């Protein structure tokens, strides 16, 4: 099997909670050796975020933490003790990447700011992922994915026009935009380092990838003076486009019609004479009468099985998809099964537990999680003996002295 793409890359990871840890997970799953710097004195709060194995709270039992920290090693170090900082410096001297998602200034307070580290290791690629960036009047903002969704205008544009915005119901920027942009920037900087020997600092404000992914409202406002409004499930140049009830409790199907031919196919599959109005054969008329059409479609879909309807519509070239939930995806979705998306990895406290695999497949071999998330401090001895040559005795002493905790 081919080597993993980031085989040999060493990452010292100060990230915690959401987006940062997800970013370094992407690197770790692709082969980088990611050492997570933790402390029992100042926990990554995601370790105490639900869900927990058997519903029992504990620092090594969170499924949320586990999925964000696959393929990583964890060491506990007290960064308030100079001996702790010294050891971390020694690890960084030999590393390729240092990552954090603290507010600006925190890394400097811990003794691991970029200016210090570049003297120790000029080739280091250093990424900071604060909410609003390293400089500027609002640099000290703090936030979670969901407040960033609000700040960037993304939440305000998501939902039905006549109701409060709904967003995604999740901390969306934490899960795709920021991890992916952070990982892309780190790999680009690694390439530059391999070509020139030069490291560099990357400043990624977590609001900015989300803004880069939602340019059109801003552009439309300037070009056409239009203030974008929430559109529900509708979209320009599509009609009908909506989510309709099917048989079963709270079951729905999404249907999207992008052409007049697809409309005729939809009408045939739904066998609804009330939809066969000649004027509705044209997109503009369907757009005009979207409310009426949506109501008629809902009447026709509600007694039908969603999966059968999806298959029938797809057979005729109409985009349709059942609104699937976690149970559908984990237990039943045949495409997820075929692509082996879900991985069950053994974990000392959680047993066989569930991880996301990568959403991309390499023909040369597997990528995706290599091993389960670490217990808190699981690899302290291993990393310090392997990398820094510390003996078991020294490690015990440093632990007793409150340095490796």
């Amino acid at each position, binding site marked *: 099997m081919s080597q993993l793409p980031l085989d040999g890359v060493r990452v010292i990871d100060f990230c915690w909670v959401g987006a940062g840890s997800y970013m370094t997970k992407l690197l770790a799953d692709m082969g980088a050796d990611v050492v997570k710097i933790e402390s029992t004195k100042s926990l990554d709060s995601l370790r105490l975020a639900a869900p927990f194995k058997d519903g029992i709270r504990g620092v090594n039992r969170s499924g949320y933490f586990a999925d964000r920290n696959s393929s990583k090693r964890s060491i506990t170090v007290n960064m308030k003790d100079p001996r702790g900082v010294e050891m971390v410096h020694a690890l960084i001297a030999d590393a390729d990447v240092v990552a954090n998602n603290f507010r600006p200034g925190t890394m400097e307070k811990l003794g691991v700011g970029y200016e210090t580290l570049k003297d120790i290791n000029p080739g280091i690629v250093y990424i900071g992922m604060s909410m609003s960036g390293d*400089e500027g009047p609002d640099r000290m903002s703090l936030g979670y994915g969901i407040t960033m969704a609000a700040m960037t205008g993304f939440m305000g544009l998501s939902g039905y026009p006549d109701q409060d915005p709904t967003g995604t119901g999740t901390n969306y920027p934490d899960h795709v935009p920021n991890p992916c942009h952070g990982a892309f920037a780190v790999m680009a900087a690694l390439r530059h380092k391999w070509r020139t020997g030069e490291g560099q600092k990357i400043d990624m404000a977590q609001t900015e990838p989300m803004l880069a992914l939602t340019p059109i409202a801003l552009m439309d406002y300037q070009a056409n003076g239009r*203030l974008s409004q929430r559109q529900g499930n509708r979209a320009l140049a599509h009609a009908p486009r909506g989510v309709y009830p099917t048989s079963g409790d709270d079951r729905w199907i999404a249907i999207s019609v992008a052409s007049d031919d697809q409309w005729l196919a939809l009408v045939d599959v739904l066998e609804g004479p009330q939809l066969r109005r000649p004027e509705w054969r044209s997109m503009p008329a369907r757009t005009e009468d979207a409310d009426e059409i949506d109501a008629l479609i809902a009447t026709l879909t509600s007694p039908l099985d969603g999966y059968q309807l999806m298959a029938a519509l797809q057979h005729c070239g109409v985009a349709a998809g059942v609104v699937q939930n976690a149970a559908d995806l984990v237990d039943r979705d045949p495409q997820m099964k075929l692509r082996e998306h879900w991985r069950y990895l053994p974990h000392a406290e959680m047993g066989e537990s569930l991880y996301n695999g990568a959403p991309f*497949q390499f023909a040369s071999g597997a990528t995706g999680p290599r091993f389960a998330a670490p217990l808190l401090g699981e690899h302290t001895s291993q990393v310090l003996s392997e990398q820094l040559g510390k003996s078991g005795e020294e490690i015990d002493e440093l632990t007793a002295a409150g340095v490796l905790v």
Partner: protein
Amino acid sequence: MPQALDGIRVLELSGLCGAYTGKLFADLGAAVTLVEPPSGSPMRNKPPFVGDVAGPENSLPFAYFAANKNGIVLDLETDAGREALADLAAEAHLVILSDHPAAASVDLDELRLANPRLVCTRITPYGSEGPYATYSGDDLTLMAMGGLLTMAGFPGQAPVVAYGEQGLLAGDQFAAVASLAAVIRAERTGEGEMIDVSIQEAIVMALENAAQTYQLEGKVRNRTAGTRRAGTGIFQAKDGDIYLLAGGIGDTAMWGNFAQWMVAEGVQGAELFAADDWDDQDPKARDLFERVFLPFAAGKTKTELYKAAREWRVPMAPMSTAPDLLQDRQLQFRNFFVTAPAGNAAAGILFPGAPYKLAGTPWTLRCAAPRFDGADHQTSQFKESAS
């Protein structure tokens, strides 16, 4: 200044998805060539248009997503077109293939055989093989099948999809991550790669803790808008809305910060939040919270609340609109928005710039999206950068 991806040559065979993958490469210095069919890239027909007038140089999405790229028109339904593609691919590092109108005529395996260092990345709704491989999908239907849609909206109503086709863009982003990982490996080892990206699966990556909540606790996450705990949600300020997450996520001290802020502001009834028996998850807490907080918030602007929340370390943000963002002092300080270059109808307006600042190899906007009238459609540009 050098750019991090200088010298990387990318062929982008995109349609309505795949363009952001190419953009991430182009903006860091790769030479990205958009291969358009004789009818033009489908994204040229994507609204909204400048002045609401359709036209190949008028699409706002195209102006943004194709900036920094060169263009070439090839009829991949013909032998000559495919030969031209093969010539280009022989010198390329990466081929991105998504919903290009002639995607079925492109044989990526053949391109890889001729150039073993080549990375080929195929983006499809469900992946290239399997029971759903032939299914079509747009953002809405893929957000449904990928499991994010079920969590968005109000209980008891049809779920409602997020703004801006984020599902399709999730596929593009993971495609970029996988592609760059493979390209930098190819540069080190000489070994290329064939990558198969499923947009559905990219969306599954966004399910937060839903899959683990199901596996570990047997609970299926669903829509919760409007039913959240006290101190969480959208609230009205004097000049618009704000979003507050007073409790934070996981085991944090956020409520304490919020309570201190309210007490310091002299908000009537705020001592309630600082009391030992305050439980933000108690069903009655939401009403109590709103009675105290709403009158206070209604008297302050979004900006005033955002500033105070920052000082008190409370997670809160304004619900920004487009004009708010264009005037945002932090984004202005960072020169986040950049001016669309001359070359199409969007010239002169601002659009998002660097999503990250690489100090040594900065993100750079070099040129506008390629024109369709032929000015930029020259094979020679690509060949020059290849030599």
